């Protein structure tokens, strides 16, 4: 591949195996004697389990065992945990109900596992799972999070009276109230953020192998963070101590957050592999994925914005009810709190903010982080408020934003975050130029001549990435530190393996991470391997989510590279009898400045391992590790502008143009960044126009297949996205990176909805903007115009 440095559009090293079908995913793993698991799942949203009769299932061909929650609890397997403690505003800790991997007493959502069958084949296991007779006594269910808080609502957990998990606040209520008391204008909106099913291309899967001789477990699984999985499985679920458990996350086909968590099924496979005495494999089907993968979003908010007579924002008040589903998933508690309300200041100078968040149990599948995690909810709320306020005061939406931009850094917001760097004017200008904002009225008139309603909508987003400083998140309730580790192993022949605690499930780390090494030592990309996803190879790591692999994971690699470079220079200086400070690395060689003396990187590496002639006291070998803990979050930001045409006869929205001007700090590989933005925008447009995980009143998920759950497709998108990037370096990490993995999904939904509401001149629109909803609003608007 040659030498590819920072900023090169290097083609992805991993694509050859993916495109030729040679990727190795969990379902591709096969071990001798392997059995297959199938889960018996609740058809009810809320019910008491009266009895479980497995006798018929046990008599079926190939069936080894039927295991239930009673056995799981009897074996001392722990409850599933939530790893972030949130305290209510009265100081009390969050109210958490028990979540067992197989439920023995009361099921609380459709699809919850109550038993598992292990059989010789997957088909036998599924047949037998249907033959397990479970008698239920149905209970009333509650699906709507606001209704769940009302008196007399069905109660899910005795630990959480009124289904309230926490009643949390941030900011200064009195200061915010004062701003409203003296406001010249107040904008008020009720804003819903629709519920999404994550839908990674590869469904979850697990293969658990128990070695009786070593009393050791191996778990192959679809994880974004195998070390965290091992830690949780060991420390909380009592499956095995850490040194007796190896977790391998091989090629993983997308996660978007949904594969951060430790789910019941993976844990049950591990437990069953020992109990049944054979390796156990489980592969989730698409219906199970809809029913059991943690969903995303699902907020109901009321927001108020105060402006002074000069159109400066003086205050923001937000009340949000967040639906967390039937149980608290691993990071669920942090999403509608520290990942959401801390971003409510956006790109704007808002002197006073107060937000109150109530997290609520309902009889739906758990809700947790999904691409953006809290930040899309904050951005959607704030950017709809900005557009609406601008319309109400009769100001251009771009100028209203510009008037309130933060321009001096560091900037302390009233909601914890301290923005380190940014230039919001530049991205706004770039986006407005790219979309030809001045030409919009002419385009609108031309569309009207064709019977189409054309609209334009803005979104100036900011997000917090690279989570995050361990001490800071610890003080906010996180159960783990959020640093990253790296180890750079130079082999005696000069090739390099980089072990990283980050995990790639589509991000292209094998390419971007290798570019760092290729540039640093002038080595061919093919001389570098990136090793990840195996707890036996990589000592520890925190995994990949929250757009942290660049800003945190690569920073750890940089630190380890610094150490390797220093040692290599010492060896070279010693061998060439030069001063260490005169050694320069260039084109794969270590040279003595100003002379023609040089050694190849390979020669230096070999010298480190032959150890025949090393500087006095130096240990042999060339291998260095580093842990990197950032000092702050990073703050990617940018402006998105969407231009749509609505067909008033059908309500169909067509996205004509979409412009994204992003500031991601330093970019390692522009092509991969563009891919991330394309994917993020597509998911955001999916949320805005198409996707909606919908339960009926009895708690049945009625969007449990692609016949009803509408994923975005190529023809739902504009012919091309107009992308540009504008670099202000992040001062907090060595490369100045900010992260780009979630921005598209965070920034795009309000741009789309603002464009539609501009086109139809009616603001009463919630996501997804389905054709029927838009058609109804068009009709209402026409009626009003006629009257």
């Amino acid at each position: 591949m040659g030498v590819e440095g920072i900023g090169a559009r290097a083609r992805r090293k991993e694509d050859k195996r993916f495109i030729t079908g040679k990727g190795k995913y969990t379902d591709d793993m096969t071990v001798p004697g392997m059995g297959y698991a199938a889960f018996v799942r609740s058809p009810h949203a809320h019910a008491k389990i009266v009895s479980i009769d497995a006798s018929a299932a046990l008599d079926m061909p190939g069936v080894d065992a039927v295991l239930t929650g009673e056995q799981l609890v009897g074996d001392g397997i722990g409850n599933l945990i939530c790893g972030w403690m949130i305290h209510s505003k009265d100081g009390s800790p969050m109210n958490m109900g028990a979540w067992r991997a197989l439920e023995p007493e009361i099921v609380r959502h459709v699809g919850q596992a109550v038993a598992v069958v292990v059989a010789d084949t997957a088909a036998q296991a599924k047949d037998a799972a249907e033959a397990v007779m479970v008698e239920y006594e149905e209970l009333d269910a509650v699906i709507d999070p606001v209704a769940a808080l009302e008196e007399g609502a069905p109660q899910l957990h005795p630990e959480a009276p009124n289904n309230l998990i926490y009643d949390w606040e941030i900011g200064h209520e009195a200061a915010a109230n004062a701003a409203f008391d003296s406001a010249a204008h107040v904008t008020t909106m009720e804003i819903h953020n629709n519920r999404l099913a994550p839908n990674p291309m590869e469904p979850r899967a697990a293969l658990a192998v128990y070695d009786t001789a070593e009393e050791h477990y191996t778990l192959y699984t679809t994880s974004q963070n195998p070390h965290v999985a091992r830690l949780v499985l060991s420390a909380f679920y009592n499956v095995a101590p850490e040194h007796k458990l190896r977790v391998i996350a091989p090629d993983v086909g997308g996660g978007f957050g949904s594969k951060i968590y430790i789910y019941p099924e993976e844990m049950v496979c591990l437990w069953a592999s020992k109990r049944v005495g054979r390796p156990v494999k489980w592969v989730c089907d698409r219906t199970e994925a809809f029913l059991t993968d943690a969903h995303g979003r699902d907020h109901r908010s009321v927001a108020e914005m105060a402006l002074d007579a000069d159109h400066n924002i003086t205050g923001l008040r937000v009340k949000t009810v967040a639906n967390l589903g039937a149980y608290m998933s691993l990071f669920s508690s942090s999403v509608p709190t520290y990942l959401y309300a801390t971003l409510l200041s956006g790109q704007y100078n808002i002197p006073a903010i107060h937000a109150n968040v109530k997290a609520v149990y309902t009889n739906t599948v758990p809700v947790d982080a999904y691409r953006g995690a809290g930040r899309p909810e904050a951005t959607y709320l704030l950017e709809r408020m900005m557009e609406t306020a601008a319309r109400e005061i009769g100001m251009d939406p771009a100028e209203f934003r510009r008037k309130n931009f933060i321009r001096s850094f560091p900037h302390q917001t009233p909601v914890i975050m301290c923005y380190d760097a940014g230039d919001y004017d530049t991205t706004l200008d770039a986006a407005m130029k790219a979309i030809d904002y001045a030409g919009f009225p002419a385009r609108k008139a031309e569309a009207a001549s064709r019977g189409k309603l054309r609209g334009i909508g803005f979104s100036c987003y900011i997000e917090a990435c690279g989570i995050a400083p361990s001490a800071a998140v610890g003080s906010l309730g996180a159960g783990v530190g959020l640093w990253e580790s790296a180890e750079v192993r130079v082999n005696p022949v000069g090739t390099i393996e980089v072990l990283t605690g980050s995990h790639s499930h589509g991000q292209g780390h094998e390419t971007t991470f290798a570019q760092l090494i290729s540039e640093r030592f002038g080595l061919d990309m093919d001389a570098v391997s990136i090793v990840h996803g195996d707890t036996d190879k990589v000592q520890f790591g925190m995994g990949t989510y929250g757009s942290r692999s660049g800003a945190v994971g690569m920073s750890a690699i940089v630190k380890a590279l610094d150490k390797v470079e220093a040692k290599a220079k010492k060896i070279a200086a010693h061998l060439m009898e030069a001063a260490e400070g005169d050694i320069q690395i260039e084109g794969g060689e270590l040279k003595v400045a100003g002379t023609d003396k040089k050694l190849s990187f390979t020669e230096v590496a070999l010298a480190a391992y032959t150890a025949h002639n090393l500087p006095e006291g130096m240990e042999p070998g060339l291998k260095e590790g580093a842990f990197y803990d950032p000092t702050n979050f990073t703050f990617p930001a940018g402006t998105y502008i969407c231009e749509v045409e609505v067909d008033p006869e059908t309500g169909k929205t067509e996205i004509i143009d979409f412009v994204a001007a992003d500031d991601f700090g330093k970019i390692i590989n522009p092509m991969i960044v563009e891919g991330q933005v394309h994917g993020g925008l597509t998911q955001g447009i999916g949320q805005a126009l198409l996707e909606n995980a919908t339960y009926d009143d009895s708690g049945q998920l009625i969007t449990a297949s692609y016949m009803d759950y509408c994923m975005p497709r190529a023809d739902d998108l504009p012919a091309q996205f107009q992308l540009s990037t504008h670099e202000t370096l992040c001062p907090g990490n060595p490369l100045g990176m900010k992260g780009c993995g979630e921005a598209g999904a965070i920034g795009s939904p309000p741009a789309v909805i603002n464009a539609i509401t501009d086109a139809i001149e009616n603001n009463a629109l919630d996501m997804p903007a389905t054709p029927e909803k838009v058609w109804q609003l068009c009709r209402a608007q026409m009626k009003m115009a006629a009257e």
Partner: protein
Amino acid sequence: MYETTYHRAESVENAVALLGGADDPKILSGGQTLLPTMKQRLAAPSDLIDVSRIADMHGICEDGNAISIGAATTHAEVAGSDLVKARIPGLAKLAGGIGDPAVRHMGTLGGSIANNDPAADYPSALVALNATISTTKRKLSAEEFFTGMFETALDEDEIVLSVSFPVAEKSAYAKYPNPASRYAMAGVFVARHGDGTVRVAVTGAGQNGVFRSAEMEAALAANFTPEAVAGISVDADGLLSDIHGSNAYRANLVTVMAKRAVAAAG
């Protein structure tokens, strides 16, 4: 999927014999609905009798003033047929808009109409073009054939062999697809026949599957322009209502699609 036994029928006679000899058989003709249903364990036929390789059930030919299409002919073959494109362009366009390329290369005309999904595209073309369905037992008009949602006049042991589409003077199909499944939420096939009569057949919207709009037909017979149907609404009461669209929205789509089909027919 539950266990099943697969048979590849060599001939129509062979298929009929296999059908008679099985417990709970299903005919497989492309399988674009049946196989996903079986994979979800929602259907469990004892035997699958695959008729898609029977040579006599394939092909497209001119038959007087009609186009005859074998039941095992794929949607892609109909969409790509020069004969269909020249004589009944609305039918070629309809076939080219079914599902996605993978579906169109596996799914067949006979399989689609025998399933009679209320949101399938083909039933509207058969009814509007007044097609005749030939089976192993008889010939049926389209309106005799489609009897209700997922219901046809076919006997358990009866197989569709071909469909004969009279060539219309003008014809066109306009559909508004369900954003998720891409089946029709409302699909309207409009045909003006040589004798001056007009047929308007609607799929995707009706609770009982495909239906005709007599009011639109009369209006178009008098004045074959989009404006003629612009003010005509079908009764929302008999229409489907689900998370993707209420019956009132579907009623609106029927009018809009009828207008667009007439405009496309020229």
